[in-house]
């Protein structure tokens, strides 16, 4: 069967998988809610199960799906745009800068003043990072400059985060910072959903608009331009879309690594390696992956608050190594 005919089936399969994991995410946790009770809870909104669903499970599942989708989508766009299979949202320094914003909010005690303080500071961090990247890159649009600027920003944000830890007013503040940075969806409410989702949607639309340009870029920037692609517009959509979408996601979940790297990679051969087709597939795949990982942290160690970012990194880092080895084997 060719990639053409397989593609709609793949999208349907990934969509179904994400939907099932979404439902499972509603049911699984300290209190297990079986499917029948789940349906009943929708009718009787006063029951204990309904309360758990609305207050705890639904925000968590919505955030898992939305954040996973934007991480997968942004990874696919950045890999296509930078024509580098090792690119991911963290590469541009956006995750690290968003984390720094959040850490500053915790450090300065702003979190006690207003519940929105932390996510808004994280978002501001992401937007500062993307502005700096855009300024450094300028009109040249040089890919190497984008990558190096991202690496430099990541290091700087990481160093400043360490400084905040170093100078933390109390061990509790330091612990709060560390825990937040690990990345998690625990104890998030619909307020968080309302905060993150608009950014995820806006960023997602911007990223989705790059599909055609990414296809053309497979032939290199000169041919892409000769095919009528506006590379400046594509760069702004890819970089600013990532900042808004992933910035909004990081603002409520903390930095969750490797999803944006792994998911596009696993799916690329299944879509015939075409960058534009990879975008919807990676969004659905990312949602499924993060929902599954978030279910895993509840099932594997229910009594401990295992952090989601830890699990994705434990799965992701070995995958990254395998990727490097297999890339080397292919080029050797």
């Amino acid at each position: 069967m060719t990639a053409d005919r397989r593609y709609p089936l793949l999208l349907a399969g990934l969509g179904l998988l994400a939907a099932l994991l979404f439902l499972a995410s509603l049911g699984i946790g300290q209190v297990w809610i079986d499917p029948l009770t789940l349906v009943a809870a929708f009718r009787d909104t006063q029951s204990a199960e309904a309360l758990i669903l609305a207050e705890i499970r639904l925000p968590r599942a919505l955030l898992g799906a939305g954040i996973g989708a934007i991480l997968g989508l942004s990874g696919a766009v950045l890999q296509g745009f930078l024509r580098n299979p090792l690119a991911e949202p963290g590469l541009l320094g956006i995750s690290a800068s968003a984390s720094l914003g959040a850490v500053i909010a915790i450090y300065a005690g702003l979190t006690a003043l207003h519940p929105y303080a932390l996510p808004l500071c994280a978002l501001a961090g992401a937007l500062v990072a993307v502005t700096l990247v855009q300024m450094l890159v300028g009109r040249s649009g040089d890919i190497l400059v984008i990558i190096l600027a991202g690496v430099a920003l990541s290091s700087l944000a990481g160093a400043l985060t360490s400084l905040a830890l170093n100078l933390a007013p109390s061990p509790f503040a330091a612990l709060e910072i560390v825990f937040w940075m690990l990345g998690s969806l625990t104890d998030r409410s619909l307020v968080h959903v309302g905060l993150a989702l608009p950014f995820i949607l806006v960023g997602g639309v911007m990223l989705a608009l790059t599909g055609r340009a990414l296809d053309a870029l497979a032939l290199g920037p000169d041919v892409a331009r000769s095919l009528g692609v506006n590379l400046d517009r594509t760069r702004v959509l890819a970089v600013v879309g990532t900042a808004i979408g992933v910035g909004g996601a990081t603002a409520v979940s903390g930095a969750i690594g490797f999803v944006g790297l792994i998911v596009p990679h696993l799916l690329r051969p299944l879509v015939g390696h075409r960058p534009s087709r990879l975008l919807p597939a990676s969004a659905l795949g990312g949602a499924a992956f993060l929902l599954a990982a978030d279910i895993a942290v509840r099932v594997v160690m229910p009594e401990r608050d295992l952090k989601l970012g830890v699990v994705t990194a434990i799965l992701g880092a070995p995958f990254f190594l395998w990727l490097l080895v297999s890339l080397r084997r292919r080029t050797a």
Partner: protein
Amino acid sequence: MIRLDCESVAVRRGARETLRGVSFSCERPQLVGVIGPNGAGKSTLMRAMTGLQPHAGSLRWQGRELAAMPPGERARLIAYMPQERTVHWPMDCIEVVLLGRLPHRGGFGGASADDLRQAREAMERMDVIGFARRPFDTLSGGEQARVLIARMLAQAPHACIADEPVNGLDPAHQIALMQVLAELVAEGRPVFVSLHDLTLASRWCDRLLLLDRGCLVADGAPGEVLNAERLAGVYGIRAEHIDIGGRPSVVPSDLIAGEDHVEPH
């Protein structure tokens, strides 16, 4: 009929001028060979003619300034094939060729039946239809070049600009490619092709533009352009002049001693 007018086109890269005051016009469909030694400015001129290279002076297609033309319209007018032949992802060859249809497609639509037909026709013409479902990276260099030329043809342009398309092709496919380019001209499209092979250039091209250190030093029929004096002056070589099928052709023979045209390695 497509018309191209270049007037005093100049390109400066840092302190170096890679093109200096290049002026010529092309009023009728011709197979135009762009020749010259390494670093003469061939690729820069071809990029400028495609609208990829900022330049001084004026470059007009159909009397309209290229720099002011909307990118989509430009893409339906001119197809370009660069010297580098990379495809960054191991896509099937048919997918690579279909990329040539992008300027003819709406915002989100996939390839239409017509797109597919045109892509297949282009692949048949370049003798690569058998590779349609093979990943691009499994092909040999010459096969890849032919797939990329099919990609250019699938764009259904009114003019073609190809930078050293015969590099790495075996003699049979070099001749086949020059034949296809000549066919495109016969169908009414001007084709600009940069070449290092002076024999192919003189045998196939209707007209040659000879560049040397950024200047257009000769413009005319191959027999006029490639005279012994210019070959000595620009390339520092001697050549045999022979007759192939009624066309005067040039076969480079040896270096002219004492001339320091070849850069030391």
